């Protein structure tokens, strides 16, 4: 490990390698299963999803294998090493400059040709390569059988068959990677068409003669210069004008002899080679229609597609509510022995009763209001995320998203925002421009995360009616759409079009889904629970000694007059900025009961939940917004949220009192 962390500070890795500690990088196209393999190898809990672009920052893990300490880096999924996105640049520099001991190129066996296009680029970089052919089972079921020996021979690198979700082939893969790392075999030089190859060779010799002090291999530099790669041209022109001049002359020659622009000719060549290698290694290519394709028909159908999209979101909510409600009742009846301290004691020993009440109440509320709803919600979210249905929703909803200046892919982070806004905002990196990332993040801050769903169900679902809770969801979707349109007009710029790989449907692995659910639930149990139990005692004490009254009073023009809420709502909304669950839990603590209907009228519950859903995002969300987009954007978004919440909440209060 020390070797690796040094490497970042002085920029040189090659000097400090000892054969006992190895560094492997996982590289490959988006959505081929790199993160599944990463989790299998390192035993960590990277969140997995069946949609392209999920790993946004590189993840790191360590393990020990046959006496070697190994650091594994999970690079983001990319299709090429051009420099049009941050992910491509980061991955390229990592492989070329930090020189990992082995690069495990993860390849989706069903889409061999397209994946090999990337493999060829890794070979151009002379990376020490192992080809990990993943999902061979899925490929086989579709009638695609691959000849391992032939592929190995053609590419000149070891090939390992893997079924990552079941852990098959992982051990062999690690063995091969260690072999490659220790023996450092020379990479085979795969030749392109003679006239293309000739030009590359000519430029390569010029580069070798110029003796540039760059860490990249000369042939790769030659190819990149011919492609007109902006970063490389910049780096080389700082060192040698002669090489650049020669590159320009050679590319002119090449484009006239190929009758095609150089970058296009090189891409065509790579694909021609990838195609011929794939064709020779494929034993059978008669593609069978599978169950997955029938599901595909259903989810992208002209009419039914909308219903499936709608059904997924509505289903997620209904399932959460009904399962959650049942579980909640079960736990409540199981916990009925925990009772508030009897009033006689509370008169004589106020402090003790406050502490006991607070702790019991906190424990009780957490167990009956949070856990039962969160677990089924996360369970279904993990299923949805892993099934591949999200890209279908993105496909069907693309034209609607254009009305908000976004394209369909933006819907993926927005739906993830229903789980938690923080990773959802990070996932906005799948969008191409900063403007789109910002617009998507803005929409996400209005997406009711699991915490807000709890508030909604705990206040409105339980005490007013599930139909009202669902209505609030519909209102929320309308708000997202309307404000998204406003934001599109305010933020200048042009939208880009959708280019998205349609991931195939997969039966989500139960193990993965359960692991993911637990990873997400864990943070609630370990972090929110303790804070809340202590906090709830503290809150009761503060309330008892009237410390909170000035705060409530100061906010009462907004809360009482404009929103029609009880005065205590001011404190609740402030608590909610830490985590949105605290709006509900705080109410339970202050009023000392989980039966909120005693203290709130139905209209107040609806307005309270609506405001809680829309107002300022919680501190973690504001922090991630600040980190990703700067504090100006984070503040603007927060203020917009508060304004929208107050406006809509006040209107809702007046409308509801008119009719109810």
């Amino acid at each position, binding site marked *: 490990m020390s070797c690796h962390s040094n490497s970042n500070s002085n920029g040189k890795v090659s000097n400090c390698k000892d054969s006992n500690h190895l560094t492997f990088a996982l590289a490959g196209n988006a959505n081929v299963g790199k993160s599944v393999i990463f989790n299998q190898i390192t035993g960590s809990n990277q969140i997995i999803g069946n949609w392209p672009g999920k790993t946004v920052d590189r993840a790191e893990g360590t393990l020990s294998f046959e006496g070697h300490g190994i650091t594994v880096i999970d690079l983001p999924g990319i299709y090429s090493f051009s420099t049009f996105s941050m992910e491509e640049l980061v991955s390229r520099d990592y492989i070329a400059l930090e020189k990992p001991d082995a690069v495990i190129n993860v390849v989706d066996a069903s889409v061999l040709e397209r994946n090999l*296009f990337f493999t060829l680029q890794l070979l151009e970089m002379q990376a020490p390569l192992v080809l990990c052919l993943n999902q061979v089972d899925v490929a086989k079921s579709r009638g695609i059988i691959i000849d391992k020996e032939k592929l190995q021979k053609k590419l000149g690198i070891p090939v390992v068959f893997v079924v990552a979700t079941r852990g098959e082939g992982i051990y062999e893969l690690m063995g091969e990677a260690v072999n490659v790392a220790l023996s450092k075999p020379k990479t085979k030089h795969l030749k392109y068409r003679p006239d293309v190859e000739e030009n590359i060779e000519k430029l390569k010799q010029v580069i070798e003669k110029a003796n540039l002090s760059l860490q990249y291999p000369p042939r790769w530099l030659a190819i990149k210069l011919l492609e007109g790669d902006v970063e490389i041209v910049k780096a080389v022109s700082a060192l040698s004008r002669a090489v650049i001049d020669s590159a320009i002359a050679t590319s002119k020659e090449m484009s006239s002899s190929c009758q095609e622009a150089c970058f*296009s000719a090189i891409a065509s060549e790579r694909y021609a080679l990838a195609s011929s290698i794939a064709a020779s290694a494929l034993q059978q290519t008669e593609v069978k229609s599978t169950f997955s394709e029938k599901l595909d028909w259903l989810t992208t159908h002209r009419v039914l597609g909308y219903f499936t999209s709608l059904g997924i979101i509505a289903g997620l909510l209904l399932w959460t509510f009904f399962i959650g409600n049942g579980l909640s009742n079960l736990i409540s009846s199981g916990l009925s022995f925990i009772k508030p301290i009897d009033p006689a004691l509370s008169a004589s020993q106020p402090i003790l009763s406050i502490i006991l009440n607070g702790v019991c109440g906190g424990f009780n509320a957490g167990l009956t209001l949070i856990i039962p709803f969160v677990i089924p919600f996360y369970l279904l979210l993990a299923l949805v995320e892993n099934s591949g249905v999200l890209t279908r929703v993105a496909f069907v909803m693309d*034209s*609607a998203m254009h009305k908000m200046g976004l394209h369909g892919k933006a819907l993926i982070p927005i739906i993830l925002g229903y789980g938690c806004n923080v990773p959802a905002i990070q996932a906005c990196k799948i969008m191409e421009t900063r403007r789109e990332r910002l617009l998507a993040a803005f929409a996400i801050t209005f997406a009711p995360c699991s915490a807000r769903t709890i508030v909604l169900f705990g206040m409105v679902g339980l005490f007013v009616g599930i139909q009202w809770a669902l209505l609030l969801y519909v209102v929320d979707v309308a708000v997202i759409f309307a404000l998204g349109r406003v934001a599109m007009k305010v933020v200048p710029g042009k939208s880009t079009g*959708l280019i998205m790989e349609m991931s195939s449907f997969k039966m989500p692995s139960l193990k993965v889904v359960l692991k993911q659910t637990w990873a997400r639930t864990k943070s609630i149990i370990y972090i929110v629970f303790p804070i809340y139990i202590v906090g709830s005692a503290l809150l009761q004490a503060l309330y008892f000694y009237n410390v909170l009254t000035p705060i409530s009073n100061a906010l009462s023009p907004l809360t009482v007059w404009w929103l029609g809420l009880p005065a205590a709502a001011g404190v609740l909304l402030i608590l909610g900025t830490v985590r949105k669950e605290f709006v509900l839990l705080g109410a339970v603590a202050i009023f000392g009961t989980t039966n909120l209907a005693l203290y709130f009228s139905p209209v107040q519950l609806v307005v309270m939940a609506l405001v809680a859903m829309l107002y300022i995002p919680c501190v973690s969300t504001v922090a991630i917004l600040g980190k990703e987009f700067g504090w100006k954007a984070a503040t603007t978004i927060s203020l917009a949220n508060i304004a929208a919440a107050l406006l809509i909440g006040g209107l809702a209060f007046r409308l509801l009192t008119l009719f109810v």
Partner: protein
Amino acid sequence: MEQKTTQDYLKTIYNLAKNGDLVSTTEISQKLEVAPASVTEMLKKLSDDDYIKYEPYKGCILTIKGLREAQKVTRKHRLLERFLADTLHIGKDKVHKEACQMEHALSDEAEESLCRLLKHPDTCADDGKTIPACDLPFSNCEECIKLHNQGLEEVGRRNKNLISIRELKDGKFGKISFIRGEHKILRRLLDMGLTPGTKIKVVKVAPMDGPVEVAVRGSKLALGQDIACNVFVEVEQPS
């Protein structure tokens, strides 16, 4: 006058043709505000000149020759619309009428310059329809920009019939021949396997002008309408 009428008819048939169905005389007469009898007469003439295939009482369909002529004039029309709206800032409701007058007088050279000046626009200003591809033999716009100083007369003309995959029916194949537009998107598409000459199949189109799902090199991609209208494939028959 003769040429103008021919072009107007071809343009109208091109615009009315959907999914390879025959375009009826009634539709044409309504669109051009000409009596059905005159339309029938004109269609016979166009059929004689091999611009259309005409089936009496059923309607007509463009031949390859007709398609190319129709695309040419439609392209000029839509480029002019863009020019009038974007550069001259003429109201979007007025550009169509104006362009109808100008399209017949615009030379091919002026058309090419207009395309470069407007940075290779893909859709027209008023109704968002696709501007057909030019008939220069390039596979992307950069080759055109690079070579235009040397004079484009020498490079010759494209002898393929191109339509954008936005206009391709579900389940139809085509060979990628030309990708229009900015470098970044072009490179992204090349990386995804849409290199010139590659066979591509339209799997389905999402409703409400949604994305086009294509199958290429064993993978499936969703391309938004704004991308799809820039990907041109070679076809043997007008759809």
